[in-house]
């Protein structure tokens, strides 16, 4: 299983702060997980589709689309940060 977490505007738009997904080779990379989520359509496509601005962290480290996801990992999707 992997933990997927959503923050800030994404958390509100997606209507959840996280979910558990069964790990598999099709989500063994960030790009694969994003494709999996996009396939849900609707708000998922709007928030994570082409042109959407978001960041991904794997195990609390910023990660690009090629980053590996292993069973047990925590993956977070969130908007560009605005602290400070």
């Amino acid at each position: 299983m992997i933990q997927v977490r959503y923050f800030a505007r994404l958390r509100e738009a997606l209507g959840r702060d996280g979910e558990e997904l069964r790990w598999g080779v099709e989500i063994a990379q960030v790009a694969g997980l994003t494709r999996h989520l996009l396939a849900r359509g609707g708000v998922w496509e709007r928030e994570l589709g082409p042109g959407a601005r978001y960041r991904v962290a794997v195990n609390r480290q910023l990660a690009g689309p090629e980053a590996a996801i292993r069973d047990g990992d925590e993956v977070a999707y969130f908007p560009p940060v605005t602290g400070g």
Partner: protein
Amino acid sequence: MTVRVQAEDFDVAAELAALQARCPNAGAVASFIGLVRGNEEGQAVKAMTLEHYPGMTEKALAEIVAEARRRWELAGTAVVHRVGRLLPGERIVLVAVASGHRDHAFAACQFIMDYLKTQAPFWKKEELAAGSRWVEAKDSDRAAAARWTEPGSAA
């Protein structure tokens, strides 16, 4: 090296005194305080709520500070960032850097702020008269962080 994320306000004088006590021979302390503004683009701000990613935030801040300590000769640093609902005029963030060299203290303090603004998982939501909205990331903040491409380079 102090890194804290907290809901409570912080005492600037106490933070600076603690930093100075840890680095008695530093000579130079540069610091930055970010405050909630009472106006954004002409609209009165009623409050600002800061969300963060517990666990990642502290890690991201520690990495930014560690990178600053690789780039400049620093005696000590303190980063305190608040989360939760804050009112106009309240402090959001303190970054303080002690060094034997004034230039290193200034550069590192600015570097930490620029990276914090683009790398640390905090998000601001503004309450305006017309309702609440998530603050959009600024191009100027991305440009500010992008300046620090060469180790030791200044703004």
